[in-house]
C-alpha cells in the first residue's frame, strides 16, 4: 500500500491539458490548491472549465486563473467578491454557470458516487429551475440537478501521507472530499507530507485510494 505517489510540480500540472475541466476546492481562496494553481499559471494552460465554489478575490487563489484569462467557463455559486468575473462575463470572455452552493456540493457528490443526480427543493420556483426536470415525490416537487465531474481535481491538504490519505486543517475541507471522488485524475498538494500510518484511520478525511498524485505544497 505504501506506493509513493509523489510527483514534481511541473509533471503534476502537465496532466492538465488546454480545454480540460478542473475542480478546485476551498472557499473564497481559503483552501484553494495555491501551489498547484501557481504552477498551472506557469505552465500556460488555458481554455479551462473551472468548477469551484467561487471566483475567490482578485490576485488570490483561483482569482488568478480568472485574471490571467485561463478560463473559458466557471461553474460556481458565488462570484461577487471578484469583480473581474463579472467584467469578463459582461464582455462575453467568460461563461459563468451559477449553482446554489448546496446543490453545487451535491452535484459533485453525485458525479463521484454514481448517482443519477440530486433531487433538491432548492431552486424550485426560481430561474435556477429553468429548463430542468422537476420530479414529484409524495406530492412535493424537487428539482433534478445533474451530476458534475471533471478531468482533474486539484486538492489542498494539510497532512498527506505517501499513500495519499488527506487530513484537511480548519475549514479548508469544503468541497474537497466530494471533488476527490468526482475527477478522473486527482492531484493533492500537501502542506506537510507525513509518514504512512500517522493519520489515525478514523481521522482520514479523504482516503488515499482516491488520490493519484501528490506534490509538495505549503509554499505560497
Amino acid at each position: 500500500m505504501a506506493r509513493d505517489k509523489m510527483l514534481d510540480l511541473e509533471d503534476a500540472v502537465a496532466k492538465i491539458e488546454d480545454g480540460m475541466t478542473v475542480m478546485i476546492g476551498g472557499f473564497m481562496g481559503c483552501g484553494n490548491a495555491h501551489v498547484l494553481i501557481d504552477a498551472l499559471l506557469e505552465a500556460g494552460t488555458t481554455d479551462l472549465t473551472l468548477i469551484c465554489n467561487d471566483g475567490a478575490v482578485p490576485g488570490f487563489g483561483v482569482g488568478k486563473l480568472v485574471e490571467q484569462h485561463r478560463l473559458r467557463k466557471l461553474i460556481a455559486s458565488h462570484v461577487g467578491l471578484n469583480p473581474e468575473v463579472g467584467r469578463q462575463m459582461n464582455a462575453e470572455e467568460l461563461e459563468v454557470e451559477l449553482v446554489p452552493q448546496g446543490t453545487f456540493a451535491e452535484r459533485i457528490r453525485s458525479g463521484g458516487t454514481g448517482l443519477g443526480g440530486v433531487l433538491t427543493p432548492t431552486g424550485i420556483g426560481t430561474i435556477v429551475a429553468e429548463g430542468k426536470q422537476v420530479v414529484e415525490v409524495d406530492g412535493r416537487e424537487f428539482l433534478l440537478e445533474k451530476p458534475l465531474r471533471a478531468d482533474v481535481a486539484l486538492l489542498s491538504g494539510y497532512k498527506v501521507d505517501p499513500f495519499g490519505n488527506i487530513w484537511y486543517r480548519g475549514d479548508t475541507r469544503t468541497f474537497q472530499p466530494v471533488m476527490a471522488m468526482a475527477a478522473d485524475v486527482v492531484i493533492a498538494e500537501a502542506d506537510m507530507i507525513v509518514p504512512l500510518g500517522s493519520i489515525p484511520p478514523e481521522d482520514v478525511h479523504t482516503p488515499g485510494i482516491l488520490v493519484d498524485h501528490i506534490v509538495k505544497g505549503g509554499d505560497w
Partner: protein
Amino acid sequence: MPTTMDKQEIRTLIAGRVARELKDGDVVNLGIGLPTEVPKYLPVGVSVVLEAENGIVGAGPASITFSARYVVDAGGKPASAIPGGAFIDSATSFGLIRGGHIDATVLGALEVDAKGNLANWIIPGKMLPGMGGAMDLVVGAKKVIVAMEHTNKGRPKILAECTLPLTAVECVDLIITEMGVIEVTPDGLVLTEINPDFTIDEVREATVAELTIAEPLGSMV
C-alpha cells in the same frame, strides 16, 4: 423621527431586535453584513451556535489559535471554531442546512413580498454576485428572518409581489426593519411591532404590500 437615526443606529436597532428572536441553544446561520452584528445583542443567558455554511459548526471570531490561512467564515474573513465546535465538509454543511437542522437564518433582502417570497441574489444586468448558500438556507432553515432597512433610499423593498428573480418562494417568516417587525402569515403581512419613532401611516407609506396591524401592536424597542 426617522431622520434622526443614522446608518449605525439603524443597524443597531435591527440587529438588537433580531437578537431577541433567537432562543438559547439555537443553531443560527447569519448572512454577511448587518446579520453578523446580531450576536453582540443577545440577551443575558442566551447563547447560540453559529453555523458558517463553508464548514464551521460553532463559529467564532478570528483568534490566534486558528490561522486565517485555514479558517475563514462564510464572508471569507478570518474566523475560528469555539471549544466544542466542528469543521465539516460542504456536503455535510448543506445537509444540515437543507435538512432542517438550522433553527434560524438571518439575511438581507433586495425585495420581500406579501407571500414571503424573497429576492436577494441578483439584479439582472447590474449585479450578479450569485446565490451562494442563500437559496439552500432559506429553503432549509426552520425560521427565515429578513433583517434590512425598510426601504432602499426611500424606495420600498416590501412589495405586493417581488419584481426581481426570486431566491425562493414563500420562505420568509419574519421581516425586521428599523420601522417595525412584520410577520408573514397565510393571510399576508402583519405588522406586529412598530418603532415608536414612526406612525402606522408612515410604515404603510414605506411599504407596497398590504399590512394588517396586529392588535395590540407592540413596540419594537
